[in-house]
């Protein structure tokens, strides 16, 4: 069913261009402007979504025509995959475009971006386009039991504490209920952790068992599937989500994408974001209060912070103050800087204190 709908929607798009050409109209596609200036708060879903401002891609300009030609090549490729029952990774599509010569993608960012543009235009998801990302290795450890459909089509039951090794349960790219079922759990909250080093420290210190928590390793900026799984755990199991990151502008963005929705994927924010997520990462105040070893902000860090001051998602009192303080002191710090006070400091003092503040 979904495939027929995708096929129809994409062909309708092509037909519009075709009909424009036949009737002598200049083909044009309007698409939501995907910048931070066009992010508005959606009251119903409590997430940030694209606003009303649009950009026009028409064949009047070389850029517009290039976009249209590349979109057509991509659509043809998607329709072929639907017809033949195949799927491909985004990286594979990037390589396949080599054969499109003048219309090939020059970077994988470009092809990923175009796939997202098509999502925005058609209100479909890239899964509908038979496109998927690579596994990125984000993982889960904690007392939660799921069932994942394996290659044989059978659901396999996995307890994410007892049935996995030290690396935890690896999050697949598809975490929808047709692939992953949430069976049961015995935990009070989810702790999403930015870095692998800190994830390992918490696992070794038994934080999941001692604090009845589920640990999720974000692996930097979290992939869509990681955010989607957090959303499902929060939504379906009612587990609160706490985000533990480094203290720098990029970590603030990681939290933003989890709690408010990312700018790049604002068209599906209600599907990915966890509006109730709380930030318990390193703050500028922590660097001062705990006297943490800190690094100087780089020029890039400073401009990222300034850009965040203009970002509507961060226009709360808390963020304004934290960002401004960080700019003033000109310092940033890593999660693992907490080790200054010993290996157990993070689990015995820092996290309990932080959690007490937000719970």
């Amino acid at each position, binding site marked *: 069913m979904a495939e027929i709908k995708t096929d129809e929607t994409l062909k309708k798009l*092509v037909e519009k261009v*075709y009909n424009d*050409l*036949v009737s002598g*109209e*200049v083909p044009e596609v309007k698409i939501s402007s995907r910048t931070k200036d066009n992010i508005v708060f959606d009251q119903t879903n409590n997430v940030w979504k694209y606003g009303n401002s649009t950009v026009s891609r028409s064949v*009047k300009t070389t850029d517009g*025509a290039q976009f249209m030609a590349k979109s*057509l090549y991509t659509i043809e490729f998607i329709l072929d995959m639907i017809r033949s029952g195949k799927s491909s990774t985004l990286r594979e599509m990037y390589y396949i475009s080599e054969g499109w010569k003048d219309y090939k993608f020059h970077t994988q960012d470009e092809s990923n971006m175009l796939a997202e543009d098509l999502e925005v235009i058609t209100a479909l998801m890239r899964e509908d386009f038979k496109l998927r990302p690579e596994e990125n290795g984000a993982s889960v450890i904690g007392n939660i039991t799921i069932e994942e459909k394996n290659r044989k089509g059978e659901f396999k039951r996995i307890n994410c504490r007892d049935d996995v090794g030290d690396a935890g349960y690896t999050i697949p790219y598809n975490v929808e209920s047709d692939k992953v079922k949430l069976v049961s759990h015995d935990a009070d909250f989810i702790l999403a952790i930015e870095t692998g080093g800190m994830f390992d420290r918490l696992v070794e210190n038994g934080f999941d068992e001692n604090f009845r928590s589920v640990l999720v390793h974000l692996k930097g900026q979290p992939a869509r599937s990681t955010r989607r799984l957090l959303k499902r755990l929060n939504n379906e199991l009612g587990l609160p989500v706490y985000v533990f990151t480094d203290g720098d502008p990029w970590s603030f963005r990681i939290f933003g994408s989890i709690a408010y929705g990312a700018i790049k994927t604002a068209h599906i924010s209600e599907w990915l974001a966890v509006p109730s997520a709380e930030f318990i990462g390193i703050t500028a105040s922590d660097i001062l209060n705990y006297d943490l070893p800190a690094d100087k902000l780089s020029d890039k860090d400073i401009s990222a912070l300034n850009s965040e001051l203009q970002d509507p998602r961060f226009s709360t009192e808390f963020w304004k103050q934290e960002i401004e303080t960080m700019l003033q002191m000109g310092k940033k710090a890593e999660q693992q800087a907490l080790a200054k006070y010993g290996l157990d400091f993070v689990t015995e003092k820092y996290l309990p204190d932080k959690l007490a503040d937000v719970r």
Partner: protein
Amino acid sequence: MAKTKEQTQYREVSLSEFFEKNRHILGFDSAQKSLFMIVKEAFDNSLDACDEYAILPEIEVSISKVSDDIFNISVTDNGPGIERTQVPRVFGQLLYGSRFHVIRQSRGQQGLGITAAILYGQLTTGEKALVETKREADDVAFRFVLGINVKDNKADLKLQEPFIWDRQHGTRVSITAKGRYITGKQSIMEYLKESAVVNPHASITFVEPDGKRTHFNRTIEKVPIISKTVKPHPYGIEIGELMTMAKASQANNLIRFLADDFSRVSDSTATEIVTNAGLKKDAKPSSLGNTEISALRESIQKTKLMPPSQESLSPIGEEFIRRGMMSIYAEERPEFYGKPITRKAGIYSGNPFSVEVGMVYGGDLPGDQAIRIIRYANKVPLLYQPGSCAITQSVFDLDWRTYGLDQKQGKGQPYGPAIILVHVYGPRLPYTSESKEAISAVEVITDEIKAAIKQEMRMLKTFGNRKEKMKKVAERFNLFRRLIPEIAVKCSAILGKETPDINPVVSKIAGVVFIHEEISKKDAGYVIKTELFNFTQSTHDFTLKALYGGMDDKVIDFKIEQLGPAEEKVFENYVEWPGQYPGTDYYFTGIEPSKIQGAELLPGDWDLRKMNGE
């Protein structure tokens, strides 16, 4: 007898001493420069002789090693040859010349000319020079072995014999001298290369001591127009000269002396000068004493005279500079050859002078190094004393950042992928020293040099803008001819429908006739494919003028008749072009400017401009 011998020795020693002491004046101040000077004197003589007789020069310069610091320099030309009785005087007599009391721009000589070169060889090696020469009118050639008898200031002839030479006319001079052979900035190779740039009508061969041969090919079959000999203008005359002229004058009285021996002096101005000097009109010029001569000169300076004639000026010329730079610097594959600039004549101290500037830019020329300035005075490359030269100083005074080149604080050495040729010419240029290695930085001259360079560099700016514009036009053309058609084909393929006609949409967006060119290298040039496509809804007639490489002499007019909507015309033309092709200038007439893209409106004064150029 003994006394005479002693005297001779004494005089020879003193001349050697004179030579030693005045090496810097004569140009023989180091081992490497001495070698350079010998080549220069002989080579410049060859070019001068050929030009004077309207012969396309073929010159071979050959240097071979005799021992560690002794070299043999041989210069052979196809010049007119020298009448054999003249040979001893031309080569063996110091200060022998025929250039007294006439004003004319010539390559000239430094110090004592070829005789000094022979003398230098004689003093450093004891070897006499070999001279071979043949005129077209003579049946046989003559060979001379000669040195210089310093005591009597005449040739010391050791041998004179006829021989059969397998050429119609020409001269060979061969000198053995002490020296050091070098390569690089101030080398013989560089001198010949820079000479080749401004003498594209010459075929020059250079054989280095290691046997390596380098050819600078002739790229223009045309002899240069040489300057006319004119009488001196009174404003430029020094006291001593005036005295010499008065002594030698054939005139019976002062009126005739002034009116006949000088330019721009009529009988009535001559009368005015003589009267104002308080002299008698019928006084014999040769009878004037020092006071009278001074009075006469003072009176001349106070009299209003017409400016000197410019006929004595001999520019290298736009065509020669262009060809020369194109051929010699082709290996750098420059992307832009500036149209050479020739300034109107100026006057310095009673003598006319002018400035020419040429330029090549971009391509493989290094962008992060100092720009190359090649300096010329009266068609002779200046390799020494750049710092004290008017040309270098003018270059350093200009702000090159305006033209997209690098320069610290807009002063001093500019950096960028450019070679700038500057030629200052005129009879009696002010040099910084007797060795004529640099031009004095006199304000009237530096002002002209700067004005010429500015004019030249403005063209580079225009070229940059044009290149940018052409890029945009090409992009648009690609949009209409490739991208939109591709979109139409893809749409219909996906839907399984017939490919729609895209012209209504394209003409809606474009609405112009497009000129687009594609170039491809072939042999010693390029195939230029000019595509015209009518993206409008109407039919057009117009003329397209193509200037290949922006050159006035490579023009083709295309008459376009009845170019209908969506119709295309393609022209192909082969252009011989050394180095990188800079693109074609397209001009149109007969179509509304808003209806055409990729060409410029033909300037209204086009035909006038062409006439002036000829």
